[in-house]
């Protein structure tokens, strides 16, 4: 049990776990992107910056206000989600009648502003965020040590993804949302306030990104660039999965995280590019994405 395929077992399981954690972030972020894209028809390029804002907000709450991780987990998505609502209300809604690419350019610009402001204030080096005491330590699973916090991130992300799926697929609110995705004007004709729903959906997607940011704060160092590097990979994940299905983005996110982790074991040099290569292959074989509708 010490070696699997000539690889030391602890290394293999360690990278698998890291892959699952990265996958958890891919899944949560691509989920938010898919929800926003479904209703607003824009790709939210600010998503990475909003993920970073989530991590910073958790750090600020702890160091400036003295509110701990658990409070941040609830407060941060609400606060950052509110900034998203404001952003939609002030800017994004002016673009719905234009080509969708303008939405991409606008959110890219806002992302640059946010990242620049945080870099001015906090510099480029990372800030540490302590793992909450309840989640520190590690479990001995026999074949490996599992740091409690890492297990928590994977489990919590799964719960959030499942909850999002239930809200969208099984509740009345979700039914409105899916109906508006198919045909917004018809839903509006039935007396539902679609513009408000669009605003709140954007806020919810942004909140999801911020929540992922809080989860990430104790794992990665909190720094202004943490989102922009991640978001490009998430774009590739979204292209691979196709934005048609919620469950599809979750499975794709976790799956690609694991693939990336395994690549780190077997061919480390390729680990940074493997997801992009998979994207190219998927595009050649199935242009609509694994779970997408053509």
């Amino acid at each position, binding site marked *: 049990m010490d070696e699997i395929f000539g690889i030391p077992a602890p290394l293999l399981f360690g990278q698998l776990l890291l892959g699952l954690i990265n996958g958890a972030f891919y899944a949560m972020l691509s989920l938010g992107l898919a929800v926003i894209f479904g209703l607003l028809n824009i790709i939210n390029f600010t998503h990475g910056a909003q993920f970073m804002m989530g991590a910073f907000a958790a750090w600020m709450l702890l160091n400036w206000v003295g509110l701990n991780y658990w409070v941040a987990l609830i407060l941060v998505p609400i606060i950052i989600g509110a900034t998203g609502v404001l952003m939609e209300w002030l800017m994004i809604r002016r673009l719905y009648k234009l080509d969708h690419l303008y939405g991409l350019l606008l959110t890219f610009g806002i992302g640059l502003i946010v990242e620049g402001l945080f870099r*001015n204030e906090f510099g480029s080096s990372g800030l540490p965020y302590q793992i909450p005491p309840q989640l520190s330590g590690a479990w001995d699973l026999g074949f490996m040590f599992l740091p409690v916090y890492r297990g928590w991130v994977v489990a919590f992300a799964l719960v959030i993804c499942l909850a999002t799926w239930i809200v969208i697929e099984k509740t009345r609110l979700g039914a409105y949302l899916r109906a508006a995705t198919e045909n917004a004007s018809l839903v509006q004709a039935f007396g539902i306030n679609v513009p408000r729903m669009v605003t709140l959906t954007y806020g919810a997607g942004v909140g999801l990104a911020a929540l992922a940011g809080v989860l990430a704060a104790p794992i990665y160092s909190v720094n202004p660039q943490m989102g922009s590097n991640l978001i490009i990979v998430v774009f590739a994940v979204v292209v691979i999965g196709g934005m048609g299905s919620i469950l599809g983005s979750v499975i794709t996110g976790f799956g690609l995280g694991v693939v990336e982790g395994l690549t780190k074991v077997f061919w480390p040099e390729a680990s940074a590019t493997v997801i992009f290569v998979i994207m190219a292959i998927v595009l050649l074989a199935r242009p609509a994405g694994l779970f997408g509708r053509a």
Partner: protein
Amino acid sequence: MASQNTAAVPTLPEERTAAQGAFGFTKPQFLTFLLLLAFLVGAPFAGLYPVFLMKLLCFGLFACAFNLLIGYVGLLSFGHAAYFGMGGYIAGHMAKVVGLSPELAILAGGAVAAGLGAVFGWIAIRRQGIYFAMITLALAQMVYFFCVQAPFTGGEDGIQAIPRGKLFGLIDLSPDLSMYWVVAAVFLIGFLLIHRIVHSPFGQVMKAIRENEPRATSLGYRTDDYKLVAFILSSALAGVAGATKSLVFGIATLTDVHWAMSGEVVLMTLVGGLGTVFGPVVGAAVIVTMQNYLAEMGAWVTVIQGGIFVACVLAFRRGILGEIAARLRVKL
């Protein structure tokens, strides 16, 4: 940019009758072109620093190449840094390690960028709109990681001390002014080539695809082939621009393949005016000048660039030249 409701047909006759001046320029365009020529010839004597001018021309050509896609085919490539940066690396490697003369090094940079563009374009044109932008961005990020690791790029250090060499093995380019004329010539050739492409029958089909792709398909055009050729041409010229830049500065680094560079070229084109002939050059001039003056402000440059993006998209979508042209009721 694509507005799907406007039919392509009504714009065509007007353009055909208007394209009567020299080089297929309309009269206002020809006057602007003369102005540009006068600037190219006069600027180094008017006390402007040649290296700054060369930087401006390299980015101007880069933005024009990018505009060929977004302005005339309606494709937003968010990964043009890959071709720009790779052109720079190849030219640097060819000039420094292989010892090619500068004109061959630049051509090699353009050729490799074209090859890269052929592969990436072939993959990316399978999807449209927003997906196309995301795919090109992701593929460019792949090139970035490749350049971080590949031995010939020098990783974080980049390729340094690239010699400018002797043009055709005869003319020494180390004086800035000699190099300037070469860069100006490269820019002019690229600029006129793009103009020629746009005003060819091929260019008309490109515009038809921009206005209404299903309709172009139904007219019997294999739109994917047209898009791919346009993509290759655009990436080749972006590579030439990057190659020229690396010879000017004697250095090729990761900055030029980074996604931020892809964003910058979008910004230049947007500021100058999407789909205008001279807009990208003006936009490049504005952004490069701004970066030069604000260089010591660090991250504020990013904030200001983001602000310009937001302002352009919300209030100023035609860009500088687009706005001027609309006021004067001409095409520029």
